[in-house]
């Protein structure tokens, strides 16, 4: 434990403007390269695109200056850069599909989702003037989260796509309510843990110098574990169950500072994973595709085909990539959503992919820094939980695509094609901006 004392408070709004300029340049150059290699480059249209990006960046900047003047200066530029790269890549994959006679408009749809996401984040900043308000809705958030998880199971409303029942169809569009449930659960965990953390931290027998929790305090952990397992079984959605359980264990650790909770959590997850692997064939298939991806029979049966094609794509990219628009990312199924990391790895190479991952690290680091800076226990847990939500999601997706862990279906935040993910993640950024604004605000102003 250590005490962190700030030396000076700087709002950093000017640095933010500079970084936003760079982020817009990244987004526009990416689009220019994609258009050029697709023989589609029209400078007028590119200028219009650049103007639109400048406008969006400026609106966000002014809104933050007005409503959250002390918010973190690095968050929005990092997210906008990721978003811009994602949009260019999806557009590039549209072109590649068009060459093969498949008409898609993922790029345009994603642009609309991006705008809606930004509007949502700004609405969060505008309407939620004090994050402590959320604490009143602790249990409401918990119930909403559960409803969100269960919605796809409602007959008539839920739709099954590719064997996973995680979508609901609203107004002809499919939405993934689990993405929003994630935020509700973080609010619930934060509110729950801030009142109960002392019982969870201090009571219980000591084994090997570590204090283990009492069985009756394990209730909430067990409940979340069961919920995560049920999601895995009924909706066949490994990614979401892993994400929710991971967020909860991480937040428990942050709240109690007890390593034993992490060990208990990992043990429970390991047990669940092995159990699911032996009981359910669809989980078993994932494990085989992961462990024996390059075996001839596994590949030819089709279970590991997508994963292996993604790996070949990244290998083709090498250190510096084939260049935006010059690779063949469309050879991987779902190159625009689940496998956008492989597409980016191919065209931007290891160098580009590392830059992208560093941007995620920066976003998560800002969330953790906000958690340290916030004085209120609820705010600490909320910021840390939201940070972990992004970090775990990136780890699960990138780990799956690069064959570190079994492949599970989750979207890469801000990059992958998908409306619910875009809206939910921009909402997280809105919350983090509000949290960091209140954490960095000098005390004289707050009083």
């Amino acid at each position, binding site marked *: 434990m250590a005490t962190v004392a700030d030396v000076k408070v700087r709002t950093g709004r000017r640095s933010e403007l500079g970084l936003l300029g760079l982020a817009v340049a990244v987004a526009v150059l990416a689009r220019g390269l994609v258009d050029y290699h697709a023989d589609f480059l029209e400078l007028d249209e590119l200028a219009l695109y650049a103007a639109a990006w400048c406008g969006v960046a400026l609106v966000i900047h002014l809104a933050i200056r007005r409503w959250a003047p002390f918010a973190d200066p690095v968050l929005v530029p990092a997210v906008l850069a990721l978003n811009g790269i994602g949009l260019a890549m999806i557009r590039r994959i549209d072109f590649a599909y068009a060459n093969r006679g498949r008409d898609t408009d993922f790029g345009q749809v994603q642009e609309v989702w991006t705008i809606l996401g930004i509007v949502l984040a700004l609405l969060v900043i505008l309407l939620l003037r004090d994050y402590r308000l959320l604490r009143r809705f602790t249990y409401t958030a918990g119930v909403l989260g559960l409803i969100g998880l269960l919605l796809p199971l409602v007959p008539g409303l839920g739709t099954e796509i590719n064997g996973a029942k995680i979508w609901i169809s609203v107004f002809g569009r499919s939405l993934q309510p689990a993405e929003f449930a994630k935020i509700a659960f973080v609010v619930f965990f934060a509110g729950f843990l801030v009142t109960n953390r002392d019982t969870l931290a*201090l009571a219980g027998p000591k084994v090997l110098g570590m204090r283990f929790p009492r069985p009756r305090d394990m209730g909430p952990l067990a409940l979340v574990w069961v919920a995560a397992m049920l999601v895995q079984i009924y909706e066949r959605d490994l990614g979401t169950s892993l994400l929710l359980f991971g967020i909860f264990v991480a937040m428990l650790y942050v709240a109690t500072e007890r390593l034993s909770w992490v060990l208990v959590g990992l043990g429970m997850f390991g047990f669940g994973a092995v159990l699911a692997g032996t009981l359910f064939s669809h989980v078993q298939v994932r494990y085989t595709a992961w462990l024996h991806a390059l075996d001839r029979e596994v590949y030819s049966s089709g279970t590991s085909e997508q994963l292996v094609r993604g790996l070949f794509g990244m290998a083709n990219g090498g250190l510096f990539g084939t260049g935006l628009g010059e690779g063949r990312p469309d050879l991987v199924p779902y190159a625009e959503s689940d496998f956008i990391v492989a597409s980016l790895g191919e065209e931007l190479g290891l160098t580009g992919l590392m*830059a992208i991952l560093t941007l995620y690290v920066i976003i998560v680091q*800002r969330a953790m820094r906000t958690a340290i800076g916030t004085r209120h226990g609820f705010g600490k847990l909320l910021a840390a939980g939201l940070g972990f939500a992004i970090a775990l999601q990136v780890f699960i997706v990138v780990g799956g695509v690069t064959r570190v862990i079994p492949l599970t279906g989750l979207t890469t935040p801000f990059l992958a094609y998908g409306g619910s993910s875009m809206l939910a993640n921009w909402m997280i950024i809105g919350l983090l901006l509000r949290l960091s604004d209140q954490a960095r605000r000098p005390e004289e102003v707050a009083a």
Partner: protein
Amino acid sequence: MSQLSITLLRMGFLVLLWALVLSAIAVLRADLYGTRITARGRGRESRRDTEARAEKTASPSRAATGIRTGSISTREPSAGHLAVTGGPLKGTTIPLGGAPILVGRASTCTLVIDDDYCSAKHCRIYLEGDRWMVEDLGSTNGTFLGNQKVTDPVPFRTGDVVRIGATALELRG
């Protein structure tokens, strides 16, 4: 465009991407290096040394008389115990270690107060760095530090009085 300019643009994009990443880190540099981090244990020990030294110069005869000074005998120089100075539990003291103290009506609390105006989990007194802080846990009737209602965690100094219903708590050295 020639092959050379295409290659340059391709590399230029990666350079631009890294320029963004590195300048973001540069903006954060003030945040990473601009903070003063004091390890909890060391800061306390060094202060204990200086306090002990000040004690010695002020009254050198104390050691000779055999009276143990507080700064040497207590483990926490900032606060020794929490005393209940009003209400049903008047006279109770709780020695303070590093562990947080939970005050409320629930039996799981460290200090259980049987008072209608006290919530099940009322407030929390905890060590942050080397300061004790008091935080309200969303109680119905509120926690008061002096005359101020506690919402955010506030520092709880020696001699301050925290009121919960009829109960008054004081931090003693």
